[in-house]
């Protein structure tokens, strides 16, 4: 651990698993720089579910992808900020690292192992050309070499060249020569054992997400499964290594309501059982309220309000959050009297200073167009409820 990492370590509160500070991700375009994520800060409390809510194009998905360095560059540009993350189960104990500082190889060790991700459309996030087994197996092969060996009954039983070959095979690093050698005796027996070991791990992982008949399902191709089933496979894959942080990017948007309910139940249950922290991204405020402990509301690349779920829902402070809640058709509204937020989302190309919401805001003040509001605690009492609005600045 290098000395400059030490002060970062000090700066992450003990109860947090991750903390995003002033994150800026821009995209190059013909018209100019698009400020998709523009100074986003929020914390994820260890063992809790954090909801990141916002409408289309507000930058929530980009934020999530930045955790894993999955933003394509170019056109993506990391313009500033950091994401501190407490990686807990690594050999030398828990340590705090800046996810954006990691090299390609370092982040790769974390992906799927300490941080995992569930994607919006399971139909697209599973490779159509590979069986479920092959795809789920990869997680174990990449990160759980020892478990595979143990399941195969080969732990501490291998040595020398055999061990080298077998490990290469598990890690998917085997070239043509090794692959061929593993197909002929005596090495082929090891290969068979490894394969059946992997099979058992995959079946267990699928079982965990309540997939009926895992040994059958795993031989299928993605298009042979229903949407809900595919999402379960994605979840199984994500939690296979029992990660510290699970990023769920609109995991139920592509599903029907009743299926959505099942998947949500499953995520919640697994989160409780494994004490995983979750960053749950959604456009649906009422859904997030239901399963998350804390919520951050995003608008046009910035966080406008954050706090615990009930507070945000019952005492929203930011005009945008209020508008969002009021726009939901609920019992209290008379027909045709929804409180819509008029206007449209501003362009994010080289935005001017000032509040992004100003053009649609019903409560704007004279200086809203000039001053960039900062995310600040609403009161001395409740430090966790923060809002970025001039109305609440003294």
């Amino acid at each position, binding site marked *: 651990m290098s000395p400059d990492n030490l002060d970062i370590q000090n700066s992450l509160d003990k109860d947090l698993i991750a903390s995003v500070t002033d994150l800026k991700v821009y995209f190059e375009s*013909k018209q100019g720089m698009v400020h998709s994520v523009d100074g986003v800060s929020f914390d994820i409390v260890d063992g809790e579910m954090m909801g990141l809510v916002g409408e289309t194009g507000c930058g929530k998905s980009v934020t999530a992808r930045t955790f894993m360095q999955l933003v394509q560059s170019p056109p993506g540009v990391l313009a500033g900020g950091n994401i501190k993350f407490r990686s807990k189960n690594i050999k030398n104990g828990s340590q705090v690292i800046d996810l954006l500082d990691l090299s390609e190889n370092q982040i790769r060790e974390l992906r799927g192992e300490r941080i995992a991700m569930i994607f919006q459309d399971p139909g697209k996030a599973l490779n159509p050309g590979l069986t479920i087994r092959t795809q789920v197996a990869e997680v174990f092969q990449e990160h759980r070499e020892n478990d595979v060996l143990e399941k195969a009954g080969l732990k501490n039983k291998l040595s020398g060249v055999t061990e080298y070959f077998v490990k290469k095979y598990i890690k998917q690093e085997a070239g043509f020569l090794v692959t061929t050698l593993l197909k002929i005796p005596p090495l082929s027996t090891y290969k068979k054992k490894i394969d059946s070991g992997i099979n058992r791990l995959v079946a267990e992982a699928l079982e965990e997400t309540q997939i009926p008949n895992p040994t059958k399902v795993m031989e299928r191709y993605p298009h042979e499964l229903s949407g809900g089933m595919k999402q379960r496979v994605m979840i199984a894959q994500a939690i296979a290594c029992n990660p510290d942080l699970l990023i769920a990017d609109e995991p139920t948007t592509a599903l029907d309501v009743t299926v959505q309910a099942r998947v949500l139940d499953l995520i919640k249950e697994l989160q409780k059982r494994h004490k995983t922290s979750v960053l749950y991204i959604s456009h649906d405020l009422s859904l997030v309220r239901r399963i998350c402990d804390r919520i951050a509301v995003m608008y046009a690349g910035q966080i406008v309000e954050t706090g615990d779920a009930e507070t945000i829902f019952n005492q929203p402070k930011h005009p945008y959050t209020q508008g969002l809640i009021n726009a939901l058709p609920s019992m209290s509204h008379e027909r045709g009297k929804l409180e819509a937020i008029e*206007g*449209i989302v*501003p*362009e994010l190309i080289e935005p*001017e200073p*000032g509040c992004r919401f*100003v*053009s649609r805001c019903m409560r704007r003040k004279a200086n809203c*167009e000039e001053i960039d509001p900062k995310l600040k605690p609403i009161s001395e009492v409740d430090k966790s409820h923060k809002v970025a609005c001039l109305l609440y600045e003294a």
Partner: protein
Amino acid sequence: MKKNAQNAGIDEVNFNDSAFKVRLKRNLEILSNVLANPTTVLGLIVVIFMLAMAIFAPVITEPNTPDPYQMPRDWKAARSAPLTPGHILGTTNRGGDVFYGVVWGARTSLKLSILVVTLTVVLGVVIGSVAGIVGGKVDEILMRIVDVFLSIPELIFALAIAAILGPSFTNIILALVIVFWVKYARIMRAQVIRIKQREYVDAAKIMGASKLQIYLKDILPNSFSPVMVQATLDMGNIVLVGATLSFIGLSEAGIAEWGVLVSEGQAGISAGRWWASTFPGLMVFLWALAFNLVGDGLRDVLDPRTETKR
């Protein structure tokens, strides 16, 4: 207040816009997108150069009499190397001026490609549209015919047709038309079937638009861009195949055509007279390359997938 104007975006009032102006602006926008790609611009420059050469051929070199499309023969200067006075690119074994062939070959190629592309596009679009719209048995039969045509490699097919019709430039045109229309029929049918399922076609049906109206207003304009891309590519390909047929010997001997010239120059190669084949061949290559580059550029811009994203 700059910010507000920006936020309002398309709400800005510009009432003097007319439909014509907007369409013109949109087409210019597409054009500027096409021109944003440097390789496309390069292709376009070469295309313009070639077209200029074809159009101004009588100005660049003095036309041969009586038929300017026939190579002039200067038997005394046969086998001259390039940079010989009067024969800047040298001459062939039989005294044909390579420069004359290069310039008038452009004119021949332009004639060939425009005729073939126009005829094949019309034929293909009509047949493809009928197959796509009528569907059922008609579609099945038309598509089997298309399959049969596609099952003979195009050069061999054209070769056989031209051979049986007898060697002449007109027969090459005919042969190429017979071979090339199928592509357009296929593309057009696929497009029509794709567009037919769009909801705006449903919307037009619900309005009560007639089938002809739907075809002309909804289906045709929205399915034409791949045809246009293919036509651009074929402006090059047709010259490529046409020149190959000429090279094999299916044009009238002695006409000012690049393939004929390459073939004529071939005889001198073993004696080291490289120029008579190299220059006209280079012209075929540049012609095909230029149209290919422009076609690729068009495809990138007109691709329906990128279009919906914008």
